[in-house]
């Protein structure tokens, strides 16, 4: 994934269906995410947002429909064939998913080592640079269980960008954080977007975060796309489920 042809969407999802434990979670989801842009997948709890995100790097296989990454259908690919594609896509997991057995610097160095980097001084320099970027310089030797929720997210973000991926997936980056930390993480994501010009897909139910970073919005409800377009257009939508979501958010902020 060294050279990315222009114009081709980074992700193209077509007619995606998924069921979990007999319950239909995604019902024919279609959308595309443009290169270099931030696409936000918005929706309430249980809408299928995180399940949809897990299809974008092949962590889940669709039961019907296709997921294309830079024009390549990843559905039929084996785990082995998916490896280079996955290495080009960083993921910020909802709870960080930091490796408990490693300290902060080892966590961040992990994708570099797995990507084939053997020069320890280059790894150390990249770890330091990435930690500075997320504002955690000096925390290299801490274990994940000694970090606060916000710090864990930032370390996880540092780990996701350490190997300089072409794309970042964010799964509820502000979930479980207080408003101040939530704003910090959102600003950090916006900064990364500007500095690294990455393609990003963010799953969230946080409208504030969406307004701050989104170039394109998809609203998901009960496994169906109710809206896909500019963030501003979402606010003008007359769809009942979208209006309820927006009104509930406004009520929550009063």
């Amino acid at each position, binding site marked *: 994934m060294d050279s990315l042809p222009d114009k081709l969407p980074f992700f193209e999802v077509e007619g995606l269906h998924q069921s979990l434990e007999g319950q239909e979670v995604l019902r024919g989801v279609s959308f595309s995410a443009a290169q270099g842009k931030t696409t936000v997948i918005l929706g309430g709890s249980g809408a299928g947002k995180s399940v949809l995100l*897990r299809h974008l*790097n092949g*962590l889940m296989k669709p039961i019907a429909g296709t997921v294309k990454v830079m024009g390549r259908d990843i559905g039929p690919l084996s*785990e*082995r064939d*998916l*490896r*280079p594609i*996955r*290495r080009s*896509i*960083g*993921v910020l*997991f*909802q*709870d960080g*998913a*930091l*490796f*408990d057995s490693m300290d902060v610097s080892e966590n961040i160095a*992990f*994708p570099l080592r*797995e*990507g084939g980097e053997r020069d320890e001084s280059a790894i150390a320099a990249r770890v330091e640079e990435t930690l500075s970027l997320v504002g955690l310089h000096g925390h290299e030797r801490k274990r994940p269980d000694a970090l606060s929720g916000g710090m864990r997210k930032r370390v996880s973000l540092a780990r996701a960008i350490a*190997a300089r991926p072409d794309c970042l997936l964010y799964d509820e980056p502000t979930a479980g954080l207080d408003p101040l930390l939530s704003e910090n993480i959102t600003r950090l994501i916006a900064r990364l977007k500007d500095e690294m010009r990455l393609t990003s897909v963010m799953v969230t139910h946080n409208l504030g975060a969406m307004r701050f970073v989104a170039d394109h919005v998809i609203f998901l409800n009960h496994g169906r796309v109710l809206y896909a377009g500019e963030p501003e257009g979402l606010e003008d939508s007359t769809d009942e489920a979208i209006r309820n979501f927006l009104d509930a958010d406004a009520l929550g902020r009063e």
Partner: protein
Amino acid sequence: MMNWSRGFLAQLGRFGLLSKEVLASLLHSGIRWRAVSSQIVAIGIGSQLVVIVTGAFTGAVFAAQAYFKFKELGLGSATGPVVSIAMCRELGPVLAALMVAGRMGSAMAAEIGTMRVTQQVDALRSFGVDPVDYLVVPKFLAILVSMPVLVAEAIWLGMIAAEFLTVEMFGVPRPWFDAQLVAHTRVDDVATGLIKGTIFGVIIVIVSCARGIHAKDGAVGVGQATTRAVVDSSLAILVVNFFLSLLLNYWLPTSSIDL
């Protein structure tokens, strides 16, 4: 009953699938030697105390019971060979494996299960790392190295304890005990124990790691996976031991005791 059978077959299928993935990984992926060595430390060195204590006290108690009964029949000298064959062929490998299943099987299931429910396994996959290569294969290789050594130690300590008890406490002459022990312990007996121990080690890793990989429902699920890993691997060891005993006794028969 139908549900239980279906669940049992599904579980066997998971064990088979994981075994296949481990073999595929050994054939096609590089081995993480650093992880293998740290697992050898955890499994092999970390299990020393439990295996030594188990081997020694099993040998001692078996020698005592055998001597009490054999003495009544005037066969006190048979104690050494009987303890030796029992320790080599059955007690050494089975008890060492049960101890390792309790100690390491639970640890393996808990480690992988926790990683699974906290999305660390997904994180591995998202970095292009196969969880089987990274988490299971090093344990598999480490137990292949560790189990024969642990079984040999259990057998050796069992025989030392049996000799100490029989000679020092029951007054059987040491040269006689040693002569009978050496005369009736064959390489086949020791080989049987080591082969069994290695197979039991494979069972422990496959059963425990499969339980961990399929853990779900948070901390409760990890607890259940850990319990099932120990129960399943212990039961599998006992059942497989029966069939292995029949098979190995045909292939590597035990010597007859001529007193």
